[in-house]
């Protein structure tokens, strides 16, 4: 936060500042310290969860970290204009991850539609599930992937998902249903 003119000039002109101005400067410093402390707390609290969410959407650890770093930078920049910082952060991470995933998919599609995942040797259900879910994620458009992640990884409601993804609430249910149907077909496939 910028200081006022006389203070910027340092000690030489500091005697010209009024008591009220000094108080305001002190308040500004306190505000800034408070903002930074609050930002740090948000960062430490939400970093890990947000990166993991972004990772499920973009499927790249480094890109996920970049998305979240950018979102935090945006929150930091707009801190004074945002009321619900955590909600804003979550939206920015989700939409940022969708963007990046969309771009990556168009640049280098990796999963031909007829690609089918291998099942885990020995019938390990957990490993098979993982392979199937990874394939499901890869097959979904980034927006649909985000909806599935927010529903089943973050446990959000349809309204919350719509708010964070930036879609209509009516889009969430059908997307989840179709994703589950697709997964169920794979699970039941011999």
């Amino acid at each position: 936060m910028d200081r006022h003119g006389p203070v910027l000039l340092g000690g030489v002109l500091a005697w010209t500042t009024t008591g009220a101005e000094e108080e305001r400067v002190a308040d500004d410093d306190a505000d800034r310290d408070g903002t930074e402390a609050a930002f740090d707390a948000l960062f430490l609290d939400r970093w890990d969860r947000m990166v993991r969410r972004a990772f499920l959407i973009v499927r790249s650890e480094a890109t996920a970290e970049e998305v979240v770093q950018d979102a935090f930078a945006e929150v930091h920049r707009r801190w004074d204009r945002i009321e619900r910082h955590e909600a804003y952060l979550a939206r920015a991470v989700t939409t940022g991850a969708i963007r990046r995933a969309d771009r990556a998919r168009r640049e280098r599609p990796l999963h031909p539609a007829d690609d089918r995942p291998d099942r885990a040797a020995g019938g390990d259900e957990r490993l098979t599930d993982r392979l199937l879910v990874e394939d499901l994620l890869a097959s979904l458009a980034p927006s649909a992937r985000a909806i599935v992640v927010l529903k089943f990884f973050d446990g959000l409601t349809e309204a919350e998902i719509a708010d964070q993804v930036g879609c209509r609430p009516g889009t969430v249910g059908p997307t989840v249903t179709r994703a589950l149907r697709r997964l169920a077909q794979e699970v039941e496939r011999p």
Partner: protein
Amino acid sequence: MSDHTPDVERRLADALDRIASDAHLTAPSTALARHRAGPDLTGADHEARRPWRRRLALAAAVLVLLVGAGVVVLAVRDREPSEPADPIPPSTSSSPFEVGRVPDGFRLVRADEATRPTTFGSDVEATDEAFTLLSPDGAVGPDVLAVSYLDADYLNAINVADRSDQRELIEVDGVPGSWDTGPDWSDLTLRITPDDPYGPSEVWVRVSSSTRRSREELVAIARATPVPDDPRVAPEMDPAPAGWTVVGGADAVLHASTYAHYGASDRDPLGPAGAHVQVFTGPAGARLAIRTMAPDAVDFEVVGRHPWLRPQAPKVTRVGGREIRTFETDCYDEGCTGIAATELPDRRGVVVLAAYGVEVEALRSIVTSVRPVSADRWNELRAELIGGRDLPPDPGEREVARGRFGDLDWMLQTSSDRDLEFDPGEEIAAFGIDRCLKVSDFDRWCVGDLIGVGGGPGETDAVWSLAFASDDRPPRVLGSLVVVPASVAGDATSIRISGPAIDSAPGEPARPAVDLTADLRPTPTGDGRFAVVPAYVGMAACRPPALTEHPWPWARIVLLDEAGRELDCVE
């Protein structure tokens, strides 16, 4: 839905937890320290900051691609030659061109002029670095130095330069740097601009020796390297540092263009401004990008000599009775090839190719089939991509709307492909409308994924999305397509869209204030109405959201009857 849904839901949630838990992530405290060091304003690809992970990921990705392909494409086919080469003057820049021979199964998907200068110095393999080559006597020999600029911030400079994973962090008179050596090489990075933790103006230099020159020698070179006006251009080492002579240089854009992971994208083609680019796609994700550059774009004696890049000499190869001189990149990705070659007749320019799934022998053959053409012929070629200058519908489709955005004409057609499950625009295709506009800039502008997608057929929501055609961040937006199901549209014959100006937000374009009306037309399936509007609509909302809380723009869409009376607000 299946009877197994509850079980499937549980298994899905468990698997997501396991996948997310296994991600190797930076600790929050470390990430916070990185944030404190300054946000990344460079746009650098952070994939490049994870050298080994990136290599493995790329290798795995391409392996999947190639296994899917089953083969590496070798066969090429001759295309019908166009008219005899036009009288084209020798060029000091890129020539428009056509390709006489392309691999079997490949299809032209883009013909354009390059719009994207690469990021620079952010790739661990040094494939995107502008560099100047020095040697003791000015000749290419075993003892050379490459001097290059690295992209902006400290973390990138250190991580990108982590050649052996054992790099030593150093300070030279208080200036940060790093130092690494191997049996027959040494490598130094050093910041050459003042500390600028919150700005993109920091510049680092890397000096790479092919003979394990000493740290002191490399520091002296780094300090003699000027702060650049454009770090994508090879450093101007004039005068050359004592004891060294400049051999030549390679600019970043040229250098990166030969590597598939930069050069083979079909969106916003990479290259020097004005370079002509054609991109083809082949089976199972194979790609081929061909670009022409100015005759002096490539110094063949220098471009292959960066000590990090398995130095190689230029080659002279006979292809079909003709000799071509090439620099052939030794890609680090499976299936990745690239070459630069002098081939255009009368040395009108060089040809640069980057590909996945095309062997280098095939690339050489393709090079010899590249012919310069006139600007008119180039535009004919581009027009063919969209069926012709008149913007006709594709075979089997019919036109449903036509209009103009500024100086661009557009045409919207039907879509016979209704099965776009999970693809961007699936909701629009369900109404029988194509998800892309054909536009007179010889491109197809397609709806973006998600931004403002509403409900589907039978639901009581408007469906709308955006048209965009770039991977810019934020994307470039041409206009919006608004679709209203018949159940919502009722007697409406037009819509009014209004919304405030919005600053650019993460992943979102800035938008001027919008206030316009547009006629609603029936959808091809008859179960809705649509309008194409020359504005970025963003997310529809009947009531303005708290703007500071929403990182994306919004607009209010109101249905109007024939008399212009407001019927309803849709969202």
